[in-house]
């Protein structure tokens, strides 16, 4: 922190940017956990009582659904980070 106090504005901006980033990452990781460890493992038996187009729902999450959600999560992260970086003026694009 020491040398940064000479440029307080920049240091604050970096800190705020980092906080936004952490918030976003935590939110996305909660979803990541729920679709895989939650739906695919811990609550698989309950979800299996529901059928999704011929596949028990828990089994579907474990073998198909979680993977599709993972892909969406990364692209949501890419999009949101781009917006955050533009806002804080730290975008490399």
């Amino acid at each position: 922190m020491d040398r940064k106090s000479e440029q307080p504005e920049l240091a604050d901006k970096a800190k705020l940017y980092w906080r936004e980033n952490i918030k976003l990452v935590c939110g996305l990781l909660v979803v990541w956990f729920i679709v895989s460890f939650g739906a695919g493992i811990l609550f698989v038996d309950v979800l299996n009582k529901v059928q999704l187009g011929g596949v028990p729902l828990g089994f579907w999450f474990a073998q198909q659904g979680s993977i599709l959600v993972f892909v969406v999560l990364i692209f949501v992260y890419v999009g949101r980070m781009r917006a955050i970086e533009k806002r804080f003026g730290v975008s490399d694009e």
Partner: protein
Amino acid sequence: MDTQTLTYIFVGFSFALYIGIAIWSRAGSTAEFYIAGGDVHPIANGMATAADWMSAASFISMAGIIAFSGYDASVYLMGWTGGYVLLALLLAPYLRKFGQFTVPDFIGERYYSKTARVVAVICLIIISFTYIAGQMRGVGVVFSRFLELPIEWGVIVGMGIVFFYAVLGGMKGITYTQVAQYCVLIFAYLVPAVFISILITGNPVPQLGLGSDVVGGDVSVLAQLDGALVDLGFTAFTEGSKSKLDMFAITLALMVGTAGLPHVIVRFFTVPKVSDARRSAGYALVFIALLYTTAPAVGAFARLNYIHSVDQQSYAEAPGWVKTWEGIGLIAWMDKNDDGVIQYGAGAPFEGRADYTGETGPSGERLLANAPTDAANEIVVDRDIMVLANPEIAGLPGWVVALVAAGGVAAALSTAAGLLLVISASISHDLLKKTFRPQISERAELLAARGSAAAAIVVAGYLGINPPGFVAQVVALAFGLAASSLFPAIFMGIFFKAMNREGAIAGMVAGIVFTLSYIIYFKSPWFGAVNNADHWLFGISPEGIGAVGMAVNFAVAAGVARFTAKTPPGVRDMVDAIRIPTSVAASEK
């Protein structure tokens, strides 16, 4: 044209393509050799990452494991894809911003220590060699079955090809061959899957075929499979036999391990910008998901087809593929009730691994010296053959079989090349240039990189000819090692400025020693340990122990860091700099 000629043409054509690319993209500098000059387009890098990532285990073994363990195999599907979320969100952008050549580079600089760098190199070498053994064995299986070469010759041919483009082209050559290899392997995986899905369900999309009704009936594929398996005495396909805790631990170890694998991480050093690293991880997962969402369908179809084609079939009239695979020792049938008919069911048909006597029985089968068990089951099949035999089982034309052979070779070679590159870079760059001989010239370093790649290929080939266990099993263990050593050190290096040199080194050592000891204790024959849930720590299998090893790493690192000297201010500034994509913050340095 017969299948074997077609296979020679397909595999030969793909080899010519890889060699052509290698010559076109020779590496001229260390930056080109280690990180392809750092200007790979994010989509190309995504494809290369997917090929690098999807190994013989993904291509050859995974659908077979799904076929024979159903829901339990979900750990591989979730574990090997979910890791990309961790990689994209927690590691890739920051490591790209750091922007050096290797993973030990980051650990060495962030923890301001040559010891940390050397510990990271040792972890990397243990992980990569565990992983590469499985790849060479995969090449051997494909060659021995489709080209009727002995396994050893298959491995040697594979080594020769990798030698050519990895040693000549370095990362640059590997990247563009991997793009080609991705195209070959995904095409080879999808074509038979689509055909089989149409044959079984009438739906050309395998992902949807999984839930569709079987042609000419009103029962879904999964329901029919569940019913057939329960009738034969197995657990239903959609239900598991592993404990929830073990499923949880294995999935976590595979996810974290994926994010911590050096040959995957280093791919993100090759793109131009931080934002490209994120995007590239997304593309990589799209390309991977294409195969990974197809695999469950392939597995379920294969099991259904397998049951129909062997159970209650007379051996004399059994389809040709049963005999060809029996011929190379990957199927074994013991006619326990002397009726000449194959009975399939739960349980091992005989004790131990198939031990052929060399004589043939009354039905023409290869006789076995093993002692029979009480189970009614008479047939055993190596899970690794399911993807390779699938087109034959489904009665698809010869060119599809040949395509699958070329795809299997592409999957194994692309991963082997990626692994060899990180091994050679860690030796020539981290050990020589950065630790023991800092004065060597770039030219000498490049020569050393090529030399160590060549040496690593020889060791890998030896491991392929004398393989430890079957492909996916060996590979699965490498993830636990990566999860317990490299991932925590990198993660804490980015997110916790307070993590210091002493903490990181102690954490890595504790994590990998714990995990490796547990695996060796249960998996090697030396201790006579019984490898089952009753004897495991908290009921966690050696495949899942990396999750515990990771926790050990974090705990030891946090404990040691509390009581040792603080991170120096210069390193804290470096962490601030890697957290921001632009160079604005870096100018403070």
